């Protein structure tokens, strides 16, 4: 069905803006808010033009307070709205973690379904564009260790649009993390009109027999680049875009490992305790017999993301480091 639609080339910000626009048009319960979301249309312009179009009641600026933003959204959601909040950078989710860990994902459970939180929290995350301190953080692992929330990280404009619309329709709280590097760095054909894509499914974005690369968000293009280089040498890498981290599509991961026998997990957050550890642990738990080599992780180092652009590319995994891991598992 989506395949039949007209498509246009959009970048990720445009695709997200379009999804927000369509959601506001479709459902009067949808409200958009956050710091600089209204008049300015967001620091990355994700909500550009939407306040003008839908008015200040539906699209509005909030005070500079992330816990307030999330708590306010929880209240709006409990009382019948469909809040879509923007946190300006994922590294600024931290002041809101109490609301997130204590209530966002627990409200349904602690009220036995009497109150639910159909809320979406969008936040740009990750590095690669020389941002200041804390502006390149990748805190997805913290969110994934929170009961009752979903975590979605798209890697292309088409996916971003459909997944964001699905997230807004979802009856549970969804984190929607958007790789800053891909905002304008990636363009793609995007179907027109309203469509949703399923949350909870991983995608094989490139098939291969040699090694499975598991990745998401900003690391998908890095892995695809690595796969292209490897292909030139005759090595076919399989690239699996996890897309939804929670609930994780374990079957697709296992299927890929069963086929290739080799797994490399790639993420840009700091290595220890990163979400890639969960992926590795699931493979080690359920596909051990198929493994022909250790499960390697290529990740950020156990250090703050370096705000000095000169060396950020040594922190953030790139195709070179992915290929080193690939060589190691192949040589094993």
């Amino acid at each position: 069905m989506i395949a039949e639609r007209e498509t246009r080339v959009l970048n990720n910000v445009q695709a997200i803006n379009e999804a927000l626009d369509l959601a506001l048009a479709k459902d009067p319960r949808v409200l958009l808010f956050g710091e600089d979301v209204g008049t300015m249309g967001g620091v990355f312009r994700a909500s550009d033009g939407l306040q003008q179009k839908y008015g200040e009641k539906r699209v509005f600026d909030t005070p500079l307070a992330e816990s307030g933003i999330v708590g306010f959204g929880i209240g709006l959601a409990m009382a019948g709205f469909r809040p879509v909040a923007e946190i300006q950078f994922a590294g600024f989710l931290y002041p809101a973690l109490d609301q997130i860990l204590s209530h966002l994902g627990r409200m349904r459970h602690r009220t036995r379904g009497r109150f639910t939180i159909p809320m979406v929290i969008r936040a740009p995350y990750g590095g690669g564009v020389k941002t200041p301190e804390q502006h390149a953080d990748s805190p997805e692992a913290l969110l994934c260790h929170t009961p009752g929330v979903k975590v979605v990280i798209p890697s292309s404009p088409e996916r971003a649009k459909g997944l964001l619309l699905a997230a807004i329709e979802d009856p549970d709280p969804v984190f929607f993390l958007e790789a800053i590097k891909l905002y304008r760095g990636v363009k793609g054909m995007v179907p027109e009109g309203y469509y949703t894509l399923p949350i909870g499914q991983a995608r094989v974005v490139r098939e291969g027999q040699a090694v499975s690369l598991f990745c998401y968000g900003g690391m998908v293009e890095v892995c695809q680049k690595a796969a292209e280089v490897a292909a030139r040498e005759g090595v076919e890498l399989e690239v699996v875009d996890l897309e939804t981290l929670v609930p994780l599509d374990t079957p697709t991961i296992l299927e890929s490992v069963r086929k290739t026998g080799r797994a490399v997990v790639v993420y840009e957050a700091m290595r220890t305790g990163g979400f890639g550890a969960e992926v590795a642990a699931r493979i080690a738990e359920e596909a051990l017999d198929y493994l022909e080599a250790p499960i390697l992780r290529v990740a950020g180092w156990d250090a703050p993301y370096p705000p000095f652009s000169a060396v950020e590319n040594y922190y953030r995994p790139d195709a070179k480091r992915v290929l080193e891991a690939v060589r190691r598992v192949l040589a094993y």
Partner: protein
Amino acid sequence: METVQYLDDTGRPLRELPFNPEELRQGYRALRRARHFDERALVLQRQGRLGVYPPFRGQEAAQVGVALCLQANRDWLLPSYRESAAALTFGMPIHKLILSWRADPAGWGAPPDVNMVQFYIPIATQIPQAAGVAHALHLQGQGAVAAVFIGDGGTSEGDFHEGLNFASVFNVPLLVTVQNNGWAISVPTHKQMRVQRIALKAQGYGIPGVVVDGNDLVAVWSVAREAVARARAGQGPTLIEALTYRVAPHTSSDDPSRYRTEEEAEQWKQRDPILRMKNCLLHLGLWSEEEEAELGEALEAEFQAELALADQAPEPNPWEIVEQVYHKMQPDQEAAWQYLRGEKA
């Protein structure tokens, strides 16, 4: 700041009361009902038939006075653990409250016609949420209001500040009642804040702040009624500081002798909100000891009937642990559920 008061420490009216006789009698009955619940709950707790229980003895007027102004199926209540009296008066069935303090999930969801969010355990998180609920009510345009409670200690948390700021910026229909009971567990208010009156903080948000004698039902009720009327009329939030005292321990696990004197509690017992209201009614010729006895019996009968209901609730099943995490069970919960049903090897 001036403290709003209608009754003197013995309960004698200081001036004309802004409620009619039937209202005053209704208010007293609600107070007594709350006290009755608290007393019975403590007994249940000692019998091991309740979990950790946070008593509210001494704070009945501060809670009941606000709850009396609300309609359960229209307005919203977001209470902290201390507000069983507000919950009860608002409309939460007693058996639900018992189950709730039994930590039985059957007690967690308010009935569909009672807009009460389950008691908040982490301190102050309810304030921004209440601002959000109130904003929703405002957008829905039905003149409904939200009421939220917090303790003196809770005002120190960042969420208190963020919530009040959101509430004031969006001018939402919200009552924020701070029960200043002098203590946050063992920490006295003067170590919690340097300011003498919490209501002064309202000035930092450009909203009205009122100090009220929290052991004077008439005073709390009338202040809350005005605040609710303002809120319904679109005039925004109000901060109410109710000066009161937690006569009982912090919770059933607490030993207050570690941090405060018996005398302090004794002094406050003299200002018991129920005694004061009863004396007020007696003074006005609106109450008799016969009615008192009848009320006592009726409350006990009600409580026992509700207790029986609570006791009938089945024990929670292990697999409920992973239910209601998502609207639809996801694979990881499903696997756990299967395991907990004993269907997995």
